[in-house]
């Protein structure tokens, strides 16, 4: 096991985001202020989705804005990890990972927190919660109130 790979030569898992990704810097900066945003194309008006990129995936225009999302969405699909692939998750199994579809139609990977993993269902309405770490904030979701 090293910083970059495990003993079978596979990439080492990391539990923190890559904050220096050029395209994603505003995303992480906005989250730090508890603003959940996604890029919307100024030319075609569509959301880029995730991961962020500099040119619109729908029309290749370079102009876009970081638009605040409502923070409301639904669970599109979900899984329950019963095995930890990373030491940081050793004490967290079983835990939920969900594909969240926001009201705006953007999908992202996240966790549904605030309820046991077995309570999560496809289609379940969820809302954003911000989990603050020292140098970044992760968007997570809880059952909508």
């Amino acid at each position: 096991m090293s910083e970059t790979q495990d003993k079978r030569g596979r990439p080492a898992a990391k539990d923190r985001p890559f904050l220096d990704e050029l395209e994603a810097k505003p995303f992480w900066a906005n989250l730090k202020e508890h603003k959940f945003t996604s890029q919307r194309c100024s030319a075609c008006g569509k959301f880029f989705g995730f991961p962020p990129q500099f040119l619109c995936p729908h029309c290749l225009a370079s102009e876009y804005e970081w638009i605040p999302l409502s923070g409301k969405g639904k669970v599109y699909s979900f899984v329950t990890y019963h095995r930890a692939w990373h030491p940081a998750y050793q004490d967290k199994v079983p835990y939920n990972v969900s594909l969240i579809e926001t009201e705006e139609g953007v999908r992202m990977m996240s966790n549904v927190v605030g309820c046991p993993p077995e309570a999560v269902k496809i289609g379940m309405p969820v809302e954003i919660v911000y989990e603050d770490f020292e140098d970044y904030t992760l968007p997570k979701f809880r059952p909508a109130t």
Partner: protein
Amino acid sequence: MANVSGKFAIVGVGETLVGKRPEASTNSLHLEAIRNCLADAGIKASQVDGLLTNQPLNDAHRSYAVRLAHMAGIDPTYATDLALGGATPVALVQHAVMAINTGMANIVMCVHARKRSTPDPSPGYAIRTGDEHWEQPWGHFAAVATHAFTAQRHMYEYGTRSEDLAEIAVATRKHACLNKNATMRKPMTVSDHQQSRMIVAPLRLLDCSLESDGGGAVLVTSAERARDFPKPPVLILGMGQHHPHFSLMDAPSLTTLGGKKSSETAYRMAGLSPKEMDFAEIYDCFTITTLVTLEDYGFCAKGEGKDFVKGGRIEIGGELPVNTHGGLLSQAHLEGMLHVTEAVKQLRGNEVEAERQVANAELGIVSGHGGNLCMHSTLILGAV
């Protein structure tokens, strides 16, 4: 554009022993597969002028096709690595056809090997797909989870159950039990599957494929030139690919994947339909992959996979024998390279254990599937 259906052929196959190969290296597994393939085809390395391989998992092996060619005594006029994950082995054959069709090569070696069961020390760095950091901060690390998202969605949309997926694991294991070169040869029941531990729900241990050491290779040439080879050629009748997304986050569907369009392209090229297939070697990294692909390939309607896989229908002797070698689930996981070699052996006849030979096998379909459920490739092969 002229249809290439039936104008190119596979004239040799090579497989290594699979399972735990602590004494072997990644390089030696590739070379063994090449050597066995050349012996099967009855030619020398110096007669081969093209080499295609999978992008290795480690950047110490960049430009691997050229390196391998020269390690094997091949002086290629065409060589490259393809990078479609588990869709690569099928795609190697497709690219060999394209290279020969343009006159860039005449006889192309397609080889793939992996060492994932025993340690493979390497001076390089592991290759990443590049967007793990949009998954791992939320604890998403594993291919089994990627496929569990699809299983969950399939269960929600079509009422598929874990017990239905078990049928695929059980049928595949039956075939592995008949294959001397299979890793898992102990019979399995639906109850064994149901009692196996949850890895990433809704997928259990016995929904998962193996981690294996081993390799395979096939040799491709024109149908005309194929007549000079000792074994009966297997014709390449149809080919297709489709890669409907890259990240799981922008997948248009989790229950219909690239296999639909990829197989439609292949059927059209071959002028054939699913009903005409005598067997299918379907990429089975997880049981759910097989289920979704059988539906996408038109063997049953979307959502009916759960009934299709029951009652012995996908076993040898059934309506559509699937993964006659034991698949990635129970033979070995070599990214489907052995799905290709197995299909060739089935079509040549009398090369596999008699109990797992598909009777009157004349047409077979092979699928490849890779990445975040995002890459797909299809081959339709036929006996002469």
